[in-house]
């Protein structure tokens, strides 16, 4: 009896630890942000005021920026959902040639920084000077303007390319594990292929799709680096770039904080809606029974279409931008035209060996990525267990609270941490970056692990417990092996995000705590060749991590 009580305590206490850490990571900076948003300085004295919030509702520029962010978020979400679900379905549910290879290749854009992707696409299609324009111009002899990458459409295009793998990751696992009996039953009862997809497959994918949609929407709307690279020069402001401008001297932290609080409230509403929507139905797609996902044979035009979707996606998201980056990185002076006879490795040599800041930045990023991902997955795993298996009365509230950072743009959370830590010894250290990274991104891991956990019917654990296994044995032999793909996917996701992270770092870094992305931003003041070289080094690092996992026979999508 006493032993049972001890086990029950462990079962409850461990997940609670994860929850408490998560709550503290959010509440501390959030309260600092809230307090700052409600303060207005009159002379030297702070006074309580709602003026910062009033400004949000009256400033025309902010409204325009908010609208632009919503357009970016909605556009990127729609395109990513369409592309990501299509790609996941093609490789998991059809016999398209090379499906195993495509399964891996589809993830490669996930390893890219969208900022780097934006830079790559600028080199590709910048008006009059992109590689595409100059290549075509060399045949026609004319100066070609080409598509306008410096626009909201350009931002949506870049965000969609690089957030499609998020959707793909969320959807492919349930698709692969879905019991074909559901779809078979529909087909046996006369449903067409599309009807089955609409009424059976997509509804069963809802948890993953909604999670992915929410993440892509808020991340796209809140991302500041791609709009900074593409639209800021055309005077097209978005909410994050406006916040960035507000934080810059002469800074108005109160208004920036008010914006963050408003966004946070909207996120709570979205999260609660998502939770309420999902709770109306059941989504268990993995049971204790044997099953095999259905593979559809595609022939003729359908096969060509599937292959075309795959090839176009990989070419536009990987091949072309990387090619552009390589050409720029090998050029001593980039003029929009590649000259192989002048190719040099000087840019690589400089950023790797001659510039101490980039060396330090690489080390800092590796430290933050490895430590942060490990901490993040540990905390998230515990939180997921609490949210999916716990019996607390306030689970809904905790879920909404833990999801808060999802909707807060990195730059705003970074601002909250800045306000929170500016008068503490944490200011200007790697530790504050590490804490901010984990606080900003652990919900990504929690969502990934929770989505998988929600698809594992508790009957498997109940069966083990009924047969005498302890809670720790059940965890070790039943749940963790089943969760392993999700845990690894979450770790890789955090590692990748941390390696390329910019939004949460931009306000918190100091001398000696620069990261790779910060170094890239600093080098952009110097030479695009250096930026391209460092971007490729970052890409190699990220792909190296991915390859290591593949070599150990463990994969996020296994």
């Amino acid at each position, binding site marked *: 009896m006493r032993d049972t009580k001890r086990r029950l305590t462990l079962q409850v206490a461990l997940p609670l630890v994860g929850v408490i850490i998560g709550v503290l990571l959010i509440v501390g900076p959030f309260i600092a942000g809230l307090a700052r948003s409600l303060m207005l300085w009159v002379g030297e004295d702070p006074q309580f005021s709602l003026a910062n919030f009033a400004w949000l509702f009256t400033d025309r520029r902010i409204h325009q920026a908010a609208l632009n962010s919503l357009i970016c978020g909605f556009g990127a979400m729609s395109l990513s959902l369409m592309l990501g679900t299509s790609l996941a379905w093609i490789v998991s549910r059809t016999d398209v040639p090379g499906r195993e290879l495509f399964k891996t290749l589809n993830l490669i854009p996930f390893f890219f920084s969208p900022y780097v992707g934006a830079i790559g696409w600028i080199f590709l299609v910048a008006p*009059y*000077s992109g590689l595409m324009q100059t290549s075509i111009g060399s045949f026609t002899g004319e100066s070609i303007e080409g598509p306008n990458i410096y626009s909201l459409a350009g931002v949506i295009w870049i965000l969609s390319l690089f957030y499609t793998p998020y959707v793909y990751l969320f959807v492919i696992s349930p698709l692969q594990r879905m019991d074909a009996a559901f779809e078979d039953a529909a087909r046996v009862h006369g449903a067409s292929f599309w009807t089955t997809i609409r009424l059976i497959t997509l509804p069963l994918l809802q948890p993953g799709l909604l999670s992915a949609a929410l993440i892509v929407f808020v991340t796209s709307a809140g991302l500041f680096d791609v709009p900074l690279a593409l639209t800021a020069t055309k005077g097209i402001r978005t909410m994050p770039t406006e916040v960035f401008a507000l*934080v810059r*001297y002469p800074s108005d932290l109160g208004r920036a904080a008010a914006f963050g609080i408003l966004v946070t409230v909207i996120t709570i509403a979205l999260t609660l809606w998502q939770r309420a929507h999902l709770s109306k139905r059941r989504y268990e797609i993995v049971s204790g029974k044997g099953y095999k996902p259905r593979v559809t044979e595609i022939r003729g035009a359908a096969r060509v279409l599937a292959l075309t979707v795959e090839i176009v996606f990989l070419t536009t998201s990987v091949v072309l931008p990387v090619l552009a980056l390589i050409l720029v990185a090998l050029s001593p002076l*980039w003029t929009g035209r590649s000259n192989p006879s002048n190719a040099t490795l000087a840019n690589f040599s400089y950023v790797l060996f001659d510039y101490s800041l980039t060396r330090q930045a690489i080390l800092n990023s590796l430290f933050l990525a490895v430590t942060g991902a490990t901490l993040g997955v540990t905390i998230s795993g515990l939180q997921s267990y609490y949210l999916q298996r716990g019996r607390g009365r306030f689970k809904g509230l905790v879920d909404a609270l833990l999801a808060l950072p999802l909707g807060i743009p990195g730059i705003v959370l970074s601002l909250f941490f800045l306000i929170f830590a500016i008068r503490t010894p944490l200011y*200007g250290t790697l530790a504050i970056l590490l804490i901010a990274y984990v606080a900003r991104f652990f919900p990504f891991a929690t969502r990934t692990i929770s989505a998988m956990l929600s698809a594992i019917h508790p009957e498997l654990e109940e069966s083990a417990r009924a047969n005498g296994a302890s809670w720790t044995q059940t965890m070790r032999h039943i749940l963790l092996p089943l969760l392993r793909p999700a845990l690894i996917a979450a770790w890789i996701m955090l590692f990748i995000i941390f390696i390329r992270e910019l939004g949460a770092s931009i306000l918190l870094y100091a001398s000696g705590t620069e990261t790779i992305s910060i170094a890239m931003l*600093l080098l952009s*003041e110097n030479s695009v060749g250096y930026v391209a070289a460092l971007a490729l080094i970052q890409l190699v690092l990220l792909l190296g991590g991915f390859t290591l996992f593949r070599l150990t026979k463990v994969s996020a999508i296994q």
Partner: protein
Amino acid sequence: MSIAGKARLGFALLLMGLATASQAQDVPALKGLDEAARTNVLQMIEGAKKEGSLNYSDTIIQPTTNDVLVSAFRTYYGLPASFPVNYTLLTSGAMITRIEQELAANRITFDVAAIGSPTWTFERYRAGAFMNYRSREYDAYQDVIKAGLGVDGAFVLNGGYAQIPIWNADILKFDGKSYRDALNAAVPGRFSIGDVVQSESHLTTYAGLRQVLDVDFFKEVAKKKPTFVGRSEQSAQRILTGQDVIAFGGNPSRVHQSNQKGAKLRILYPSEGFTFLPQLTFILAKAPHPNAAKLWIDFILSDAGQKILADKEALISGRANFQSPIPDIAPNFSSLKIIKVDWEKMTADQLMKYREEWISIFNP
């Protein structure tokens, strides 16, 4: 250890000490100094060695130039090659934001900074943010200090630059003399101006230009739908690749550096005059490495430091009788037609009004 062993060790240490002292006595920084000044510099060198490093930041100096500067700095004072000089290149807005945050946090990481934002620099000086250090090199900067580009014993320019029209001679044949000519040469949608919202130095430039160019001129600029660029490299890059045919906010440093790699960029010092942006350099009051910081200020303002900055960065020296090695790109200070602005009297509020005016014209 035996007594003989201890004696040998002591003798060896004495020899090492004498060798080090002898080396220190020979360093270039000490040449021509009187005994008191020599003692002072030697004490600072020893202090810097104990402090162990130097952190400085600038908005112009490229990392490659920094490498040359740091190497010369170590040689100048006989510091070991391992003496760390940590350099951070920042945009003007980013630097101000960082320093403001560090001041608010009372946790200063930079020792020395240099920035082309005189209004902010004067404001911070008045607030007591800078260390009082009257470098002996200040003697050579009295003319520019009288011209309002520094405060004796607090800060002075380590060089200056302009944000002026630049173009690619391979793409545009332009022989205009004025801002008006540059505007006439601008192709709608294919020229850039400095982003006054994002950049303090472009805001400063705009505030200066408004002394000689009226609002209507800028309204004409706005009609041609310019691109707003915050970073000088970005505007130079757009000119290099042909995205833009002319940039109003080009930086002579980038022109010089690109041309050294084979480009054919050109600059115009307009007949209306131009806003001279002094890179005002100072030591922060609570600098973590004050001795190293003082040595750096002495070095960067010296003839040796100024030659490197002029040669590598095309900065215009404020040092008396300094001869520019590249007068076509970085003319001598005395030959320039600089727009007169009293930066000491210009307040941050006035500057913000210029920013609001710019926003109302360009509606970015």
